[in-house]
């Protein structure tokens, strides 16, 4: 349209005005935008950068290889084996149940596995959860091949604990298992490794006590992931430090032999090297397979262990505390002789009982032993002699001597729930029961009954201390990470050598004199002769009625009411090497149930293998040989370092 110049000018003016107005609005908006960018990119930059890092950079922990445990000769007794397992990350899986269903068609999945996986995955949807482990190679590869069709599923090869000798070391080493909520609740500053699902930590025994050494340090992998969590590249890798290897003092062959020798008895045996205190074997029977616990023990298996009246889960060698019975008589004798209340050659008359007030304390031999001196009292285990000398010396001196010899003292070994035993005295009874100590208590304690308690370990230490006259201290760990653990000092006990010699001679005669209580378990090889002491501790009170009827024989009682059988010994007599204690729960008499086992063990230790039959009395050799055949011992090759499951 034609427009007048005035109109044109008007139009231009108007447009310019409006354009300027528009431009200023635009300028304001651009300014706002620039400020917004400044706010996001400058003021908030740190926060957002952190968020971006979290978005894309993930740190995955690399579990370190757990330290190995070797026996004293370097054989692996706790190793690591390859473990093929399958993990799932819920976030990547989408429909977890569906993926598990499909997985279940490739490898056997129990209903338990499924439920546990779903529960754990629900708790930590972004972390890999172990669905199944200890798969065979075929199962593992079947899953690996089908992995693309199983979102969120990853196949991994990890290490898992393996105990090649299984039950032999179950009580000493304990076992490892996945970290539990309970474990975490006990830790004040949990290692980040604990967040790795099913990370294995020591639950018991050496595995638990030396956890800090064995665990090692976590490595880490810094990876960049994309929005779907797929790993794009590895940005850095810091390998962890494997755990330190631990070398224990146990000889795995001896350990294996002792376990086999104890067999199905509910028993414990400890072998101590009297010169160093090294524990060469420490067994509790019956035992269990710790590998079951590493894998996660099944309900029925666990029930079978807990319901067994022989208590396979309990470590009787250090946790068990038994009345030491007559094995305590050396303590009473040493206390009395050191105090000078009786001489080595002095005799006490034994009519078969001691009267205290109107109460009778019986000797095990109803007819009595007649006049007995120290040697005869030990040899024949006369109770009345000890009733008498215990009364003379008093309980406090006896308790003191017991502690000097290791009873009532807690030894610091890396094992679980170590019992302190008990060497009772007047103060103890007063503070424990608020009652005064009675003379009757002294009598009972004098023969190792009543309140006195000792663990098999303590009894072995006692035997070692009597054998050497030194304060032998037991040692279980020989070296950690190649660093030798120094031997404890073994100062003289400060006992009169003549007195000690007399007591040792008494013990010698127990198994070498015809009238000795353990004569049947003698060693006939002169270089290997054994000195020992039998013990039989009552687990019940003998009632007057029973006594009137004639004491019921042990064999006629139900198992759980029979006496405990004990035996302590050291050998060779002339130059002691090993001290051994054996406790057979409800085994009957020490001379019949415990002494033969102790002799076999000490000979085994001395011979470093099966001892020649010539060490045994001639008339026993064929029986011993037959018994040996029945034992299932380790082959000559010993355990392999670790093996993978077929």
């Amino acid at each position, binding site marked *: 349209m034609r427009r007048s110049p005035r109109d044109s000018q008007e139009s231009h003016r108007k447009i310019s005005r*409006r354009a300027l107005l528009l431009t200023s609005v635009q300028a304001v908006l651009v300014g706002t935008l620039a400020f917004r960018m400044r706010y996001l990119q400058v003021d908030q930059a740190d926060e957002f950068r952190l968020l971006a890092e979290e*978005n894309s950079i993930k740190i995955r922990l690399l579990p370190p290889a757990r330290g190995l445990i070797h026996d004293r000769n370097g054989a692996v007794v706790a190793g690591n084996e390859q473990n093929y397992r399958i993990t799932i990350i819920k976030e990547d899986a989408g429909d977890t149940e569906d993926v598990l269903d499909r997985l279940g068609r490739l490898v056997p999945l129990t209903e338990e596995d499924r439920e546990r996986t779903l529960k754990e995955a629900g708790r930590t949807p972004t972390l890999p959860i172990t669905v199944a482990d200890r798969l065979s190679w075929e199962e593992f590869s079947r899953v690996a091949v089908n992995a693309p069709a199983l979102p969120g599923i990853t196949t991994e090869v990890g290490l898992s604990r393996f105990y090649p000798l299984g039950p032999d070391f179950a009580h000493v080493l304990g076992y490892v298992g996945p970290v539990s909520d309970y474990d975490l609740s006990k830790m004040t500053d949990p290692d980040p490794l604990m967040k790795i699902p099913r990370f294995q930590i020591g639950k018991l025994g050496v595995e638990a006590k030396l956890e800090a050494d064995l665990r090692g340090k976590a490595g880490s992998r810094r990876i960049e992931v994309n929005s*779907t969590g797929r790993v794009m590249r590895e940005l850095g890798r810091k390998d962890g430090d494997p755990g330190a290897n631990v070398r224990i003092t146990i000889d795995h062959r001896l350990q294996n032999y002792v376990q086999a020798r104890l067999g199905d008895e509910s028993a414990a045996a400890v072998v101590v090297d009297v010169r160093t205190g090294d524990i060469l074997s420490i067994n509790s029977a019956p035992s269990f397979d710790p590998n079951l616990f590493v894998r996660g023990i099944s309900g029925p298996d666990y029930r079978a262990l807990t319901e067994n009246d022989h208590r396979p889960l309990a470590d009787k060698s250090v946790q068990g505390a038994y009345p030491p019975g007559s094995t305590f008589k050396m303590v009473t004798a040493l206390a009395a002789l050191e105090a000078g209340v009786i001489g080595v050659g002095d005799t006490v008359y034994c009519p078969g009982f001691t009267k205290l007030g109107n109460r009778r304390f019986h000797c095990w031999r109803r007819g009595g032993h007649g006049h007995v001196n120290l040697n005869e009292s030990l040899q024949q285990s006369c109770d009345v002699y000890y009733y008498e000398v215990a009364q003379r010396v008093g309980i406090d001196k006896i308790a003191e001597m017991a502690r000097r010899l290791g009873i009532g003292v807690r030894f610091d070994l890396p094992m679980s729930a170590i019992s302190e035993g008990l060497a009772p005295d007047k103060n103890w009874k007063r503070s424990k029961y608020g009652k005064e100590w009675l003379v009757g208590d002294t009598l009972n304690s004098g023969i190792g009954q009543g309140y006195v308690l000792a663990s098999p370990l303590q009894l072995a230490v006692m035997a070692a201390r009597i054998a050497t006259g030194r304060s032998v201290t037991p040692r279980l760990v020989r070296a950690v990470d190649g660093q030798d653990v120094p031997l404890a000092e073994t100062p003289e006990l400060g006992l009169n050598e003549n007195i000690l010699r007399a007591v040792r001679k008494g013990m010698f005669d127990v198994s070498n004199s015809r009238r000795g209580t353990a004569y049947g378990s003698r060693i006939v090889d002169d270089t290997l002769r054994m000195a020992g002491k039998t013990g039989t501790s009552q687990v019940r009170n003998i009632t007057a009625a029973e006594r009137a009827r004639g004491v019921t024989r042990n064999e006629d009682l139900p198992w759980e009411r029979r006496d405990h059988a004990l035996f302590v010994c050291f050998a060779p007599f002339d130059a002691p090497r090993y001290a051994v204690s054996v406790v057979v729960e409800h085994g009957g008499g020490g001379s019949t149930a415990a002494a033969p086992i102790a002799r076999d063990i000490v000979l085994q230790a001395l011979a470093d293998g099966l001892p020649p039959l010539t060490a045994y009395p001639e008339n026993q050799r064929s029986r011993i040989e037959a018994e040996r055949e029945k034992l299932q011992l380790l082959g000559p090759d010993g355990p392999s370092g670790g093996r993978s499951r077929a």
Partner: protein
Amino acid sequence: MSYLEYNVKTIPTGLRKVLYFNWPLVLLVAAVAAVGFLMLYSVAGGRLEVWAEPQMKRFAVGMTAMLVIGFVPIWFWRNISAVAYLLALLLLVAVEFFGSIGMGAQRWIELGPLRLQPSELMKVALVMLLAAYYDWLDIKKTSHPLWVLIPVLIILTPTVLVLKQPDLGTAILLLAGGGLVMFVAGVSLWYFGTVIALSVALIFAVFESRGTDWQLIEDYQFRRIDTFLDPSSDPLGAGYNITQAQIALGSGGWTGRGFMQGSQSRLNFLPEKHTDFIFTTLAEEFGFVGAVSLLALYVLILVFCVQSALSNRDRFSSLLILGISGTFFLFFMVNMSMVTGLMPVVGVPLPLVSYGGTAMIILLGAFGLVQSAHIHRPR
């Protein structure tokens, strides 16, 4: 002055027109496009052939279109503006029936190898028609209700069609672009005041309509508004885009993490990283400095356009340039506001930078119109 009064002799002719192009504007446009190539190369993980190369080809086509259009006298474009509008309208209707579905909306028609997005065409055609309308209209009648109703209808017809696709972003751009031309043309401010008041009422009505059977916008649009108002309410769902975009932007800091080092975009945390959200990659890799530099380039383009418009005494040319530059402003403003969380997420690409079908070619064509107006201005 109208073109009939031009002293045609003073207008450059033939190839000499090349000398009269607004070259700073051309260079600025090319510079922004180059930033786009760089970013597309980066988000493709250092690969040219994924996005950068096709984009370059499109740019070449667009530049050619710009030159060709620039050579054609502005009065020709004025004369065909009504035709262009009707054609665009026709295509918009056609898209209703034959359009392809992409990202949940009908937006384009396949014409052999060409993928035509009529709504893009409409943005330019609408501005052209409105500029032509106000050039034709007696200035005194500009604010007369009847003469205001006509451009309103011109604007609303395509807007409603686009809304039906549904494409909220383009609808807003059409509405705002058209309104902008009317504003510059001098329509009384009262009308604008009234429209703003009515819009507020309409927004209220939209929210009220939610969940009823007369619901005015789609559920997904409601969700976008929800997540705009509170992105943290659904960080892994609809709010994901916004959250991740802000993380990318923020983590850039002052100078950015360096070219090709943006973890957010390269690791696919960002959605639509090569299209609507490409600005976040730039901001992450080149930081505040890079982001503001791009903003400055855009502002310079605006400045040159406004300068050209104000120095042009042809009413159609002024209105056309202001309309096109205003639409261009709306483009980058809406996109940047969206990724910085100042606005809800609406599908608006970053002009000249985002990877996108015909948008780039059409935008360059529009700049061709600006050049034509510049070259053929009355002297």
